[in-house]
C-alpha cells in the first residue's frame, strides 16, 4: 500500500514538472506552430543559473528569480532574432532550435562541468509531512502545489483575461486576430517568453529533486514531447492530463520494469497515436 502511495506521489510531482515544460511547448506551438526543441535547454539553463546565483547570494528566492530572468531573456532573443527569420517553416524552425539546444547544452557543460549537482532546497521544505500514518516528503508536495498553481493561473489567464482572450483568438486564426487589431507579433514574443520562463521554473524546482547534469535537457525534452503528443499540441488541458499520465507511467515503469523504463512510456504513446494522431485534445 505505502509503495503505491509513495510512487503515486513521486509520479504526480514529476508529472507537475513535466507540465511546466509541456504547457509552454504546447502554447508556443498553438500560437506560432513552432516545435521548439530548445525547450529542454531552458530547463537546464534555468537550474544551472539558479545554482550559481544561490551560491553567490545565499538566497533561493533571488536564485529562482535570476534563473527565470536569464532564461526568459534567452527565449525572447531566440524568438525575436532567430525564429522570426524562418516563419511558417516547421523543419527549419525545428533544426534552428535543435542547434540552440546543442549550443546551450555544450556551453553549460563547459561552464558548469560534467559532475551532477543538486540545487539546495529551502529549509522549511526539507522535512516530511505526516498524513495519518504516512510520511510524505514535503518537497514533493511543494512541487505538486506549484504545478497545480501554475496550471490554475494559466487557465485563469487564458479563459478570464484580456490577454488570454487575445491568445485564444490568435491560436484560432492569427490572420483574423490581426485584422481586429491584436498585435500578434508582440503576443508571440510574450507567449514564447512565458513558455521559456515556465521551463526555467521547472528546472529550478526540479533541481533539488532530480539534480542538474549534462543531458538532463534532452531527457526532459523527450518526456515533455511525449506529454504533448499524448495530450495534443496547443491544448493546456492536454498538457496537464498528458503530464500526469507520463509522470505516473515513468515512475511506475522505472520502479517495476527498470530495464524497459523508456518502453513503458513510449508504448502507450504509440497506442494513443494509433487511435488519435493529434493526441487526446490536440489542435491541427
Amino acid at each position, binding site marked *: 500500500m505505502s509503495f503505491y502511495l509513495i510512487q503515486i506521489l513521486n509520479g504526480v510531482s514529476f508529472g507537475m514538472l513535466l507540465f511546466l515544460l509541456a504547457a509552454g511547448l504546447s502554447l508556443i506551438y498553438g500560437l506560432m506552430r513552432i*516545435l521548439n526543441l530548445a525547450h529542454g535547454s531552458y530547463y537546464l539553463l534555468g537550474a544551472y543559473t539558479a545554482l550559481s546565483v544561490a551560491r553567490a547570494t545565499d538566497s533561493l528566492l533571488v536564485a529562482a528569480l535570476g534563473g527565470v530572468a536569464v532564461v526568459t531573456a534567452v527565449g525572447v532573443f531566440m524568438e525575436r532574432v532567430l525564429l522570426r527569420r524562418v516563419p511558417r517553416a516547421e*523543419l527549419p524552425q525545428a*533544426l534552428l532550435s535543435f542547434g540552440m539546444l546543442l549550443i546551450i547544452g555544450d556551453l553549460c557543460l563547459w561552464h558548469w562541468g560534467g559532475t551532477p549537482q543538486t540545487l539546495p532546497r529551502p529549509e522549511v521544505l526539507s522535512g516530511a509531512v505526516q498524513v495519518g500514518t504516512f510520511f510524505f516528503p514535503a518537497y514533493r508536495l511543494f512541487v505538486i502545489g506549484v504545478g497545480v498553481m501554475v496550471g490554475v493561473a494559466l487557465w485563469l489567464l487564458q479563459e478570464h483575461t484580456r490577454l488570454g482572450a487575445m491568445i485564444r483568438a490568435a491560436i484560432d486564426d492569427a490572420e483574423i486576430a490581426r485584422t481586429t487589431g491584436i498585435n500578434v507579433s508582440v503576443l508571440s514574443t510574450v507567449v514564447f517568453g512565458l513558455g521559456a520562463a515556465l521551463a526555467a521554473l521547472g528546472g529550478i524546482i526540479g533541481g533539488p529533486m532530480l539534480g542538474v547534469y549534462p543531458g538532463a535537457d534532452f531527457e526532459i525534452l523527450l518526456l515533455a514531447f511525449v506529454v504533448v503528443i499524448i495530450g495534443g499540441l496547443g491544448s493546456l488541458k492536454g498538457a496537464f492530463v498528458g503530464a500526469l499520465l507520463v509522470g505516473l507511467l515513468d515512475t511506475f515503469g522505472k520502479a517495476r520494469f527498470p530495464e524497459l523504463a523508456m518502453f513503458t512510456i513510449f508504448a502507450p504513446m504509440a497506442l494513443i497515436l494509433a487511435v488519435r494522431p493529434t493526441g487526446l485534445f490536440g489542435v491541427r
Partner: protein
Amino acid sequence: MILRAGAAVGALAVLPLALSSYQVDLLTKMLIFAIFAMSLNLSLGYAGLPSLGHAAYFGVGAYTVGLLAVRVWNNFWVDMACGLVAAAVAAALFGLLALRAEGSYLLMITLALAQVLWGIAFGWRRLTGGDDGLPGIPRPAEGLPLSLADGRRFYYLVLVCFVASVAVLALVTRSPFGRALVGIRESARRMEVLGYDTWRYKYVAFVLAGLFAGLAGNLFVYYNGFVSPAYLSIVFSAAALIMVILGGAGTLLGPVLGSAVIVYLENAVSAYTQRWLLVLGLVYVAVTLFVPEGLVGLLRRRKDQAA
C-alpha cells in the same frame, strides 16, 4: 552524364592509392554517412516527409548485424541480409503509425518511435550492452573470398555499396514513381485528384528510405566495430537532417556533399577542441539562416547569376 558519373567513380576508386590509411578511413566514413543522408533525402527531399527519427533504421541495421556477428553467426551475407530486412521491417511498422500525421506531428512521432528503440538499446543491457554499447564486431571476412579487415579492401566494399545506392536512388527518383513523389510533396491534394493513392507512394518511399538507412548502419557497424545507443538517438537523427539540408534537399548528390562536409568538420574540429557539439549547433543555426536551399542550391544560383 554517364561519362561524368564514370569519371567520379573512377576517381573514388583510385583515390585510396594516394591517401594514407587514416585518410582512407575518413573517406570510408564519409561514404557510409552519404548513404545514410541520401536515404533520408528520398523521404524528406523527394516525398516531403520530415523525420526526427531516421537514426532508428540505421541503428536497427547496425545492432542487427552487430548482434548476429558477435553472438550468432558471423557470415557476411547472412548478417547483411538480416540487417537490411530488420531495418525495412522497422520502417514498415513505424511508417504505419507515423504517416497518419504530417508536419510537426510527423517530426514528433518519428522522434518518439525512434526513442522507443533507443530505450530498448539503452535499457536491455543483457542483449545490447546498454549504454556501454556493443563492442568487438569484426570486419567482414566469413563467407567472402577474402578478408576485408584491411582498411583499403573494406573501402572498396563501401564504395560498391555507395555507387549501387546512388544508381538505385537515381533510377527511383527519375522514374514515374519518383516524379509522383515530388508531385505529392508539392501538392498532395492535386495528386489525389489525379487519382494517385498518395498514402501508398509515401509509404513506399518511407520504407525504401529505411532500407537504405539500414544499409548504412550495416556498413557502419563493420567500419566502427562498435555500436551504442547514440546511433539511435535524436542527435544522430538530426545530424542526418542537417547533412541533407546543408547539401541540398531534393537533389541527388546534395546529401553526399552535406555528409562529407559534416564528417570532415567533425574530424577537423575534434582534433583541436572538445567543443564539437557547440560547433555543430552553430552549423545548424547558420545553415537554417544563411543556406536554407543548401550548398547545391547555392552553387546553382551562383551559376545562374553568372550566366
